[in-house]
C-alpha cells in the first residue's frame, strides 16, 4: 500500500459512521450545518482518512487518557446482515454493491479494531470466491481471446455474469490477471505447435 496508490486513496474516501465525543464549535459543516456547534454525540459519516486519526488520537485530557475525539462503528458495507450473508453463501453476495473496495476497507477497519470473527469470515469468503474467479477466468481465457482489455471484459459469457459484476476492485484485478495468464499460456502453446 503505497502513498501514491490510487486504490488505497479511494479506499480512504469510504465513509464510516462516527460519533463525536465532544462539542466542537468550528466543525458544524461536517454535519451539514456550517456555523453551528457540532455537539457531542452527533453522528456523522466521515471519510476514513479523517475518521481514522480522529478515532486514535487521544484528546490529551488529564481525567481520561483513552478518550478520543470520535468513536466509530463498522461501515455500512460490513454491517451484520452482509456478514451473515457471506457466512451463508460467499458466492451469492455482490461485494461491489457494498463497496468497490470491499476487502481493503475491511482490512483497514480490522487494523483499527479487533474483529476476529469478521476476519475469519472474510478469509473464508475470499478463498471461496477466488476459486470461483479462477474458474471463470479460465473459461473466458479459453475462448477466442479477442483483445478485450480494460474493465470492459467483465461480464462476458452468460452464467457467471452476475457473479463477475459483483467483484470488488481487488477481485477484479485477480480475475484480470488469471484471465490474461490463461490466454498468454494458450497463445504460447499454439505457437509451439505451429513451429
Amino acid at each position, binding site marked *: 500500500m503505497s502513498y*501514491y496508490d490510487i486504490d488505497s486513496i479511494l479506499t480512504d474516501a469510504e465513509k464510516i459512521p462516527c460519533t463525536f465525543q*465532544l462539542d*466542537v*464549535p468550528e466543525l458544524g*459543516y461536517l454535519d451539514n450545518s456550517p456555523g453551528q456547534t457540532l455537539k457531542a454525540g452527533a453522528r456523522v459519516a466521515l*471519510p476514513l482518512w*479523517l475518521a481514522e486519526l480522529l478515532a486514535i488520537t487521544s484528546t*490529551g*485530557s488529564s481525567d481520561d487518557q483513552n478518550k478520543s475525539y470520535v468513536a466509530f462503528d463498522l461501515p455500512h458495507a460490513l454491517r451484520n446482515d452482509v456478514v451473515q450473508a457471506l457466512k451463508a453463501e460467499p458466492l451469492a453476495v455482490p461485494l461491489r454493491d457494498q463497496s468497490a473496495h470491499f476487502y481493503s476497507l475491511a482490512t483497514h477497519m480490522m487494523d483499527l479494531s479487533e474483529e476476529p470473527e469478521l476476519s475469519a469470515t472474510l478469509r473464508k469468503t475470499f478463498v471461496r470466491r477466488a476459486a470461483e474467479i479462477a474458474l471463470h477466468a479460465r473459461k473466458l481465457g479459453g475462448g477466442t481471446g479477442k483483445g478485450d482489455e480494460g*474493465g470492459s471484459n467483465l461480464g462476458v459469457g452468460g452464467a457467471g455474469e452476475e457473479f463477475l459484476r459483483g467483484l470488488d476492485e481487488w477481485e477484479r484485478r485477480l480475475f484480470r490477471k488469471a484471465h490474461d495468464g490463461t490466454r498468454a499460456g494458450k497463445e504460447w502453446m499454439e505457437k509451439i505447435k505451429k513451429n
Partner: protein
Amino acid sequence: MPMYGDLGNKLVQNAKRTQNLAHLPPYQTELVRSVAREVRDLDRDVASLLEPFQESFDPAADQATACTLLVNHMSMRRNKRCLLAYHRTRTDKLEELVWNGSDLLDLAGQQTGGAGPTNGMNGPTDSSSSSSSLSPQEEDYVRQYGDLLAAYKGHWTDIDLTGSLEPPRDLFIDVRVLKDAGEIQTEYG
C-alpha cells in the same frame, strides 16, 4: 454536502480512469487549482485559529480547537496526497508513452485528433485555451524526459532500447540506404 477533500477525490477518480486508458485525458487545470485553493483556505483557518494563542497552544486545555486543527491538518494532508497521486499517475503514463516512441507533438495533439473514436463529440471541443491535453509543466517534463532517454540510449548505439521485442518473422529485413554505396554484391549475387 460538499466537504474538504471532495475535490481531491474527484482528481483521484480521474487518475483511476486514466490508468485504464491508452491515451492521456486532458489535464484538469481547474480542479487542480481548486484543490490548491482549498489548501490555502485551510492554512489560513489554521493560522487564524492559532493566532490568539501566541505559540503556546495546549491541546489538553482546549480540546475543541485541537480537534478543529487536527481536522484542518488532515484535510490539507489529504489534498496533498490526492494532488501528488494525480500528477504521479500522469507522469507515469507520460514516461510509458515516451518509451513507446510517442513524441511531444503526438501527445499534445491527442485530444483533438487521437481521441476521436472513443468520444463521439467532434469539432472543436471545450478545451478552452489550448488544444493540448498536457499542462505546460507536463509538456516540459516530456521534453526533458525524452532528452534523458535519448542520452541514455546513446550509450549503446548498437542496441535499440525502444525497439520491438518481437524477433523479425522473415529472414530478410528491409533496410534503408542512408549513403550512396554504389554497386553492392550480396552473398547470393
